[in-house]
């Protein structure tokens, strides 16, 4: 028998299920480009994220995502305090590089106390130090056609052990606060926070700040990397590639 209550419940459930199905519709997804365009137009491409004083830091900076890649290769590198680790820089570059931690430390450094904003809603403030990504990209020399910088990581996340990666465009790659941090709060980066090297791209959400960076690749297109959406969480869960919102 069809009751009014039954109709309302069924109708409501159908409507909700319908809405759930629309969550990934192209119309909704178009908002990402609109926000990116609006933010960069009114905020400026080179606008700096807020920097804080040392006493404004979080007393305890929680870890998130992978806490330890824990692969045989990574454990061997960690056991030797990453003395044998090398950052590979390749793809569309004139001079592919292989850089040790000591070499990264000897480049001009930038230190910044910034707020890390997780997509989940929490924030933590910490100090990060390392060379600017721009310095490294200029050493390698981007070739014509390079549009994105991809960061390949040592960790594989989730039950299916899918390799973590992230990507940013050249606007953020050459931003003054975009650094490759090897130090956090005046100490070498801990394993929980991405040792030996993590990306800091301060005007975007936490998932963009790739940890355990092993290789940097300059590419013309994100298609063909992972599932083509530009990052681990973008591929797996559908998070926005532009993490400024």
């Amino acid at each position, binding site marked *: 028998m069809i009751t009014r209550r039954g109709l309302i419940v069924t109708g409501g459930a159908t409507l909700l299920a319908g809405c759930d199905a629309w969550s990934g519709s192209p119309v909704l997804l178009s908002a990402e480009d609109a926000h990116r365009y609006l933010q960069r137009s009114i905020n400026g491409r080179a606008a700096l994220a807020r920097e804080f004083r040392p006493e404004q830091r979080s007393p305890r900076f929680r870890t998130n995502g992978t806490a330890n890649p824990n692969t045989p290769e990574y454990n061997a590198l960690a056991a030797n305090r990453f003395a044998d680790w090398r950052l590979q820089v390749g793809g569309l570059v004139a001079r592919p590089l292989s850089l040790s931690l000591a070499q990264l430390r000897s480049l001009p450094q930038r230190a910044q106390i910034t707020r890390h904003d997780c997509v989940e809603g*929490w924030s933590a403030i910490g100090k990060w130090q390392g060379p600017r990504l721009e310095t490294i990209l200029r050493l390698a020399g981007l070739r014509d056609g390079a549009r994105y910088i991809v960061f390949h990581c040592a960790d594989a996340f989730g039950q299916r052990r899918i390799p973590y990666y992230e990507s940013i465009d050249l606007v953020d790659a050459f931003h003054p606060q975009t650094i490759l941090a090897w130090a956090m709060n005046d100490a070498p980066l801990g394993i929980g926070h991405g040792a030996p090297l993590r990306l800091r791209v301060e005007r975007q959400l936490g998932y963009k700040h790739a940890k355990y960076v092993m290789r940097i690749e300059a590419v013309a297109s994100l298609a063909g990397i992972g599932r083509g959406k530009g990052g681990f969480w973008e591929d797996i869960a559908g998070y*926005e590639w532009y993490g400024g919102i």
Partner: protein
Amino acid sequence: MQVYRHRLITRIWHWVNALAVLVMIPSGLMIFNAHPRLYWGNYGANFDHAWLSLPRWPGWLTLPSTYDLAGARHWHLFFALVLAFSLLIYLLWSLANRHLQRDLRFRRDELSAAHLAGDLRAHWEMRFHDPEDPRAYNLFQKASYALVLFVLLPLLIFTGLALAPGMWPWLADLFGGRQSARSLHFIAMALLTGFVVVHLTLVILAGPVNEVRSMITGWWRSPEAEPGE
């Protein structure tokens, strides 16, 4: 007596805004479920002191109905643009056509204690319209519409913008830090939800068919014209 009560721009904005609010509250609750704790200040995470820590909202209140932070953000960030730009257009338009100045301005005599008490008694007796001028909003109506238009909706928009790491850094500073902005965003949402509940209750008490029709066609039948009165 038929009264032309709501102009086209008001009617369009009302329904666009209603849809945006209807999407943004449930999708916002889903986003909240990803970290159901609120803090004051610039930072705030699991080890820091939360002033409010709630259980997760049930699926029938959230959009999407099962845990999906990415999907909720798609809904929320799309309708954020709808909400903000429709409000901007509506407010500018309503300044230009003098809707705000004419219908929402408090007159001095309305603010007297006697008038306030009279309005309160009229509400209690479910008389919502001045028979002398049935088109006019009463004082509480004006106050609540002004609160939504000039305080709650702008506060929701700007605290929401302050949460975006790519947005102006001073915006988060203005609210006392990003986590304070997040707390204020939540409080403003709770107040707006309160408004929606009161608003819908009063629509039902005042005669839902007549009220809803007036927000669709613009034409409202004043109580004197109701049959049997």
